């Protein structure tokens, strides 16, 4: 191959690679990004059953019920406007408690949220003082300073 052609081929290959990356990413992001919802969003019918998502809100006081098997809990997440019942099987994070903020990862099934993971902020000092800051809590539980 002549050097001129070779350079052309390499440039084309690089451009194709970039396009492929962008297309693959768009395809993947279209149905694999999980959206962050509040109970009010769910009440307004913004989410579809079974879709992967995150739910954020305050754990309502007096709502945590431990199930007989000892490892499943039910509780209610609220944002002051609406309430969503959540079912979770597992060890809850250290700072998960009533009246505190929490983010659950999972999906909606027939009006209740089946959580696979619960994230709570590890450091009490940075807990949002009021519900208005809940948005800032998004992801915060997982984003550790390293």
């Amino acid at each position, binding site marked *: 191959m002549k050097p001129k052609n*070779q350079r052309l081929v390499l440039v084309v290959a690089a451009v194709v690679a970039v396009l492929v990356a*962008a297309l693959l990413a768009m395809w*993947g*992001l279209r149905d694999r990004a999980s*959206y962050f919802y509040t109970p009010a969003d769910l009440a307004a019918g913004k989410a579809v059953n079974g879709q992967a998502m995150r739910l954020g809100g305050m754990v309502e006081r007096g709502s945590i019920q431990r199930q007989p098997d000892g490892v499943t809990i039910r509780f209610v997440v609220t944002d002051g406007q609406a309430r969503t019942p959540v079912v979770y099987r597992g060890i809850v994070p*250290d700072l998960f408690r009533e009246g505190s903020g929490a983010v659950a990862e999972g999906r909606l099934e027939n009006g209740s949220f089946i959580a696979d993971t619960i994230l709570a902020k590890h450091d009490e000092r940075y807990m949002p003082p009021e519900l208005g800051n809940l948005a800032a809590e998004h992801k915060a539980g997982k*984003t550790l*300073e*390293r």
Partner: protein
Amino acid sequence: MIAETGLIALWLAAGLAALQVVLMTLALRTRVEVGRTIRSIAVVQGALTLIAFAMLVLVFARSDMSVALVFENSHSAKPFIYKVAGTWGNHEGSMLLWVTVLSVAGAFFALLSRRTSERTLVAALGAQATLALGFYAFLLIASNPFARLFPAPPDGRGLNPLLQDPGLAFHPPTLYLGYVGLSVAFSLAVGALLTGEVDSKLARAMRPWVLGAWILLTLGITAGSYWAYYELGWGGYWFWDPVENASLMPWLAATALLHSINVLAARGALKAWTMMLAVIAFSMSMVGTFLVRSGILTSVHAFAIDPERGTFLLALLAIYVGAAFTLFAVRAATLKEGAPFELVSRETGLVINNLLLSVILGIVFLGTLYPLFVEAVSGEKLSVGAPYFNAVAGPLALVLAVLVGVGPLLSWRRERRPVFKQLTVPTLLGVTALVITFILAPGMTILTRLGLMVATYLAGASILPLVRRNPLRAPLATWGMVIAHFGIAVALAGMAMNGAFTSERLAVIKPGETLSVGPWTVLLKDVTPTAGKNWTALEGELRATRGDSITVLKPQTRYFSDPPTETSEAAIETFWNGQLYTVIGKPDPSGGWQLRLWWKPFVTLIWAGGALIALGGAIALLGRLWRRRRVQPEWRKERYA
């Protein structure tokens, strides 16, 4: 006085960096000889930042609460090692570490560089100083680590207990060394683009820096993965968290650069492409620093509330990356054509490697930044996690792993021998592994199944470059390559087996009761209170039995008072064929305790593989440095490289 000394040293270093930039401009315009001067200045500048950093370590070690940073992030009751490590466990301290590594790397480059031409060296040192100057400005204007408090508070507010761990002392500095080591490659690329001297000599000068940085990045990522695994108590080794991606992206770019630089060094081809990768690799380091340090990850919202730091970093990022790419765009077309090569050749193999790595890098980059972009534009919140990255990047990584077995067998320029015959045995091994998974574990997911197959194939294929010759006479660089590629197979096997064969149990049991997981029967003997220097804990005593062997594990739930926090400390026991991972949770009103148990067969292979990859890099680096010591005439190097 200590803090003031540090601050003065930092100002002086900034001044010297500015002088370096002026000298470079002068030298490039007027051809004045400044090489010797600029080298000395770079060394002094590195020494000054080292002094500044040492001063910060000192105020942390002495728990000097009159320094605001110490007050915010330390506590007098902390163990000494964490007081010291706390220096870089916060924003200002870690940025100081960053800039220290940046200018010390510049100093070493100035001292050690023998292969670069004088003009390119001056340009590169100027570029390095330009980088440093921006980050000095960031520290001095927006993140002064030495700010004082008056009056001095009685005691500090403590360090996030999650960070109170030996992993913290080791992990961030390693990653930073890797991140910032790439700055030398960036500066060399910028310097060479300025002078137009992009050739195999430049590639050989750049290679040890890329290799060194890449080794440290590999080690840092592996250590970080293990840290997350045992410290978070979730049993996972990679979460596709943006902070993790921030370290993965420079690694991917550096891996591509490491391969393309060999083409430039040996064959003088892929000039523009290699220069672009050198620019991208360090740009990814800066993107990573921006993501982690600007607060943008906590939320775009928080970023907007405290805009000074984030905007400053973003501006630095935009200026440096923008300037480097503009320079590249202007100069790339003026570079001479590289040496030609045939379709089936080592060069083509490395081009494909580079394209695949770039595509994976693009996918990780878009997936990491997409949520920030969407939130900034529409305010909508979303997260992109494992489902996206595994599904989109996973298959490509597997394809790449298959080609890793092929590339090293090809020869430069053109391949005439029937190399693919050599791959018969490894391919048969892989197919056998696939058949075995169908018999033993019919329920495996497709990705883990293919992962095991490719891992088995690659374990065989990766050692072929040593098989076809006398292994003792192979160059160290070949040994390094083989070990690193074998490490990929090992890590891949660990990931696949962890994904396929992990068993998990979660239940509430009372003391005296047992729970079984995998081949293990675990007895909860008792739960007792215990205490450390600045924490109290509830500690479970578990007796795990498998056949005749008995192991005692003691997972804890720890309570820290400054700041008030709980963490769970998993107890992990390692065996040759896997790890038993135990976490104790909350007490039950009936007197039972939540226990979460995992049996993870061969999970340790993941980090063993990472360590092997780094070891391979280290051996190759030794080989390169040792080879260059033997004096060889230039024509011989060209012929045998």
